[in-house]
C-alpha cells in the first residue's frame, strides 16, 4: 500500500534521538499543562512556538504536538485524584474516576485513563493514515444543519443520565443553557443578559464553571464529612498496570464505540469535550455495567477518555487538510504552520509529503512515548493522595483560583468560581445533577448558533434538518436515542408482564 511506504519513510524522518528527546520534553510540559486547570495546550504551544522557528518544521511540529499529547494525558490526573478537571474534556472522567479514587482504586483509574487515551489516539491516527483524503471530503459536507444535528445527537445520548428527579434534571439543564446564552450573541451581534456589566461580556466560561462546581464543590463536601479516601491508607501496589489491563478486554465494545464517537466528533469538528460526554453517555446506556456508572466503574473512565483522545487526535485532520482548527490548540499550531511557510489545505498532502508523513509517524511515536512516561509515573501520582488533606485543601483552592483566573485573565471569574463552588455543593446535596448543567453550558451556545445559522440558510424552514440523508439520519438517530429511556422502560414492562401473563 502506498500509505504504508510513505509512513515508513515518515518514521525514518521522525525517529531520531533528537526528535525523541523533543518528544519527551514536549510531553512533560504537556502533562504539567494538562494537570493545571487554566493552562491549556494552547498556552504551551503558543509559548514554545517562537523557539521552534530555528528548527526544521518536522522537529518543530513533533515537539509541539507532543505538548498536545501530554495535555490530553494529563487532564485526567487531577480529575481522578481531586475531582478537578484539568482540561475541559476531562470533566466526564471525574464522574467515575474520582469515586474510584475515593475507594482506593486511584491507580487503576489512572492506568485505565491513560491506556484508553492511548487506544483512542492510535485509532484516530490510523484513520488519518489511511483515510485522510476521504475523511476530509466528508467533513466538507457539514453545514450548519449538520452541525446542529451532531450537537443534538450529543445531547440526546446524554438525556436521562442524571440520578436526580426528572424535574431537578430539567431545571439543572435549563440553567446550563441560560448561563451559556450570556454574552455576545454571535448571530445578531447583540448583547444578552449582560445588563450593562462589562464583566459579563464574555459570558460564563465552561472551565470556570467546572472548576468551581467540581473542584471547589468537592473540597466543601470533603471538609464537611472529613476526607473519605479509603485509598489514603491502602498500600501502593506496583502491579496496577497488569491488574487494570486484565480488566480491559471485556470493555472491547466500549472501546470501539468511543473510538468511533471520538473520531466522528473530532473531524466534524464537534470537539473533544462533547465527544467525551457522548462516549460516557452511550457507554452508560449500552454497557452491561452501565447502571453502576457514577459509583466508580472502570468502564466509566475508559469510555470518555477513549473518546476524548480520539477526538483530540482526529481534530488535527481538518486542520491539515482544510485549514480549520478543531480546537484552540490546533488553531495555534495552524499559526505555526503558516510561519514555517506551510500552507495547510488541500495541497499540503501533495506538496509537503515529507512533513505530513513525518508528522503522522510522530503521532504514533508521541503516543507510545507518552503512554510509557505516564504509566511509570502512576505510583507517584497516586501517592499524592497520601498527603494530609489540610495541606492539599488550600493548595487545591489556590490551583483552582489560578485556573479560573487564566481562562480570561479576569478576577471576576475567580469570584464566579467561588460562587459556582457553593452551587456545586448545594446541588450535590439537594440532588440536582451536575452533568446536564455542564453539558448544556458547553454545547448550548454552539447548538443555538448552528440552529439559527441553519434557519438563516433555509429561510426559517425547520424541515431543513431532514433535507438530506446526512443531517436527516443523524437527527433521526438523535430522536431515537432521546426516547430510548422511554422505549426501554416500555420494553422492560412488556418483558416483565409477558411471562406473568403466560
Amino acid at each position, binding site marked *: 500500500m502506498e500509505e504504508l511506504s510513505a509512513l515508513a519513510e515518515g518514521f525514518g524522518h521522525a525517529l531520531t534521538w533528537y526528535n525523541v528527546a523533543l518528544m519527551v520534553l514536549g510531553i512533560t510540559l504537556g502533562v504539567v499543562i494538562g494537570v493545571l486547570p487554566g493552562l491549556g495546550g494552547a498556552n504551551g504551544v503558543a509559548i514554545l512556538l517562537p523557539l521552534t522557528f530555528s528548527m526544521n518544521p518536522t522537529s518543530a511540529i513533533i515537539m509541539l504536538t507532543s505538548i498536545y499529547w501530554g495535555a490530553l494525558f494529563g487532564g485526567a490526573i487531577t480529575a481522578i485524584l481531586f475531582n478537578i478537571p484539568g482540561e475541559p474534556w476531562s470533566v466526564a472522567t471525574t464522574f467515575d474516576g474520582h469515586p474510584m479514587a475515593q475507594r482506593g482504586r486511584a491507580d487503576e483509574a489512572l492506568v485505565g485513563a491513560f491506556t484508553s487515551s492511548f487506544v483512542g489516539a492510535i485509532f484516530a491516527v490510523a484513520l488519518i493514515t489511511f483515510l485522510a483524503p476521504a475523511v476530509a471530503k466528508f467533513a466538507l459536507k457539514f453545514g450548519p444543519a449538520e452541525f446542529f444535528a451532531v450537537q443534538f445527537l450529543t445531547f440526546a445520548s446524554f438525556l436521562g443520565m442524571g440520578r436526580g428527579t426528572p424535574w431537578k434534571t430539567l431545571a439543572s439543564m435549563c440553567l446550563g443553557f441560560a448561563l451559556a446564552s450570556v454574552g455576545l450573541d454571535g448571530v445578531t451581534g447583540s448583547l444578552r443578559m449582560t445588563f450593562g456589566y*462589562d464583566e459579563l*461580556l464574555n459570558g460564563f466560561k465552561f472551565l470556570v464553571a467546572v472548576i468551581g462546581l467540581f473542584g471547589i464543590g468537592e473540597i466543601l463536601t470533603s471538609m464537611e464529612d472529613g476526607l473519605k479516601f479509603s485509598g489514603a491508607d491502602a498500600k501502593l501496589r506496583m502491579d496496577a498496570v497488569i491488574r487494570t489491563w486484565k480488566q480491559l478486554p471485556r470493555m472491547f465494545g466500549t472501546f470501539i464505540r468511543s473510538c468511533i464517537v471520538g473520531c466522528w466528533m473530532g473531524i466534524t469538528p464537534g470537539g473533544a469535550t462533547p465527544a467525551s460526554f457522548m462516549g460516557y453517555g452511550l457507554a452508560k446506556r449500552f454497557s452491561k455495567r452501565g447502571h453502576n456508572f457514577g459509583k466508580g466503574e472502570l468502564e466509566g473512565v475508559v469510555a470518555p477518555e477513549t473518546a476524548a483522545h480520539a477526538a483530540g487526535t482526529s481534530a488535527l485532520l481538518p486542520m491539515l487538510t482544510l*485549514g480549520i482548527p478543531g480546537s484552540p490548540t490546533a488553531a*495555534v499550531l495552524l499559526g505555526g504552520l503558516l510561519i514555517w511557510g506551510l500552507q495547510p489545505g488541500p495541497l499540503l498532502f501533495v506538496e509537503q509529503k515529507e512533513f505530513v508523513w513525518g508528522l503522522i509517524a510522530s503521532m504514533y511515536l508521541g503516543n507510545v512515548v507518552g503512554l510509557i512516561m505516564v504509566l511509570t509515573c502512576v505510583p507517584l501520582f497516586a501517592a499524592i493522595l497520601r498527603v494530609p488533606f489540610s495541606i492539599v485543601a488550600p493548595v487545591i483552592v489556590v490551583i483552582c483560583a489560578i485556573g479560573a483566573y487564566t481562562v480570561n485573565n479576569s478576577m471576576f471569574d475567580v469570584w464566579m468560581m467561588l460562587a459556582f463552588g457553593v452551587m456545586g455543593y448545594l446541588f450535590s446535596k439537594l440532588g440536582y445533577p451536575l452533568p446536564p448543567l455542564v453539558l448544556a453550558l458547553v454545547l448550548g451556545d454552539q447548538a443555538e448558533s448552528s440552529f439559527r445559522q441553519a434557519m438563516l440558510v433555509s*429561510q426559517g424552514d425547520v424541515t431543513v434538518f431532514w433535507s438530506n440523508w446526512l443531517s436527516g439520519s443523524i437527527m433521526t438517530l438523535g430522536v431515537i436515542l432521546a426516547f430510548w429511556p422511554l422505549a426501554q422502560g416500555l420494553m422492560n414492562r412488556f418483558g416483565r408482564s409477558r411471562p406473568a401473563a403466560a
Partner: protein
Amino acid sequence: MRMKSWKTIAKRLGLAAGLGVLASAPALAWEPTKPVTLIIPAGTGGGADQMARFIQGVIQKHELMSKPLIVVNKGGGAGAEGFLEMKASANDPHKIVITLSNLFTTPLGTGTPFNWKDMKPVKMMALDQFILWVNASEPYKTAGDYISAVKAGEDRAFKMGGTGSKQEDQIITVAIEKETGGKKFTYVPYDGGGKVAVQLVGGHITSSVNNPIEAVAQWRGGQLRPLCIFDKARSTYTAKVTEAQAWGDIPTCAESGLPIEYQMLRGIFTTKNATPDQVAYYEGVLKKVMETPEWKEFMEKGAFNQTTMTGSEFEAWLTAAEARHRELMTGAGFVAGAK
C-alpha cells in the same frame, strides 16, 4: 543549528538562569521594565491572532526587545473585552493591542463605551484586503456575472457567509446589496474566517468576502475562485500563487462594475497616557519587525496592502475611517440603540 535551538530551549525554561539577560544597547530613551503584553481583541486562529503571534515570533527570533512579549487573547464581546482592558490601564505603558475593524464596529454595534481615542496609536502595520470568492464549480467568472445572477435570482436566494455579525464582512455585504437592484443576500455569520472558506468549499453558502490569507489554500487547491478585490488598485504582488494566477491578476471590484472599496486596519496601539518616548520605542521595534524578510514573506502570502503610517498621519486616517464606519453602519441599521 541544533545546538542553538537546544540552548534557546534551555534558556526559555529558565535552566540557564537569569544571568544572560544583560545584553542589548541602551540606545533608546525608554525601555520596558517588565514583560510587555500584546492583547488580541479576537479569538485564536483568526487573522489578527495570526499576525500578532507572527510579530511575537519575529521579535523573539531576532531579539528585538529586551523584555519578553506576552500574547493574550481577549476576544469576548466581539473584542470589547480587550479594548476595555486597554482603556482601563491607561497608565500602564507595558500593554499594546493589535486592532482590526472591530475597533470601530464593536462600540457602534454593541454600544460598548470605548473609542480608539481611548488608546494611543503607534503604527499602522498594513491593510488587510477583502476579496469576493465563489466556489470554483460555479459558473461565475467575474464579479459582473455574479451580480447579474443575484439580480436575476430570487430575493435572499444567494447566501453570503462571513465572520461575525454587524462587522466588516456584513458591512461589505450590505454595500454590495446596493448594486443588486434591491435583491438581498442571506447573510450567514460564522465564528471564524477559516470556517467561512470551508463552508464555501462545501457549498453551504454561495459566496464570501474572506481575507486573502483565509482562503488562499482553497484557491491554490482549485476549490475557490476569486472574483474581485475590494481595493482601488490591483494588488502589487505578481508572483504566481496558483498555476495560472497571481494576486495581481485579480481585478478590482470597481473594474467589474462593483464600485466598493474596503480594507481592514492591522495596527498597533498602546495605552492612552503613554509618553512620546514610549510610543517611539514601540514604533522602533515594529519598524525593525517590518524590515525582516519573514515579514515581507508574510505580507505577500496574505496579499496585504503594505500601507504603513505613524503619528498624525495615522490619526487622521483613523478619524476618517471612524467616520466612514459610522456612516456605513448607520446606513445598514447596525448601530446599537438605533432600532
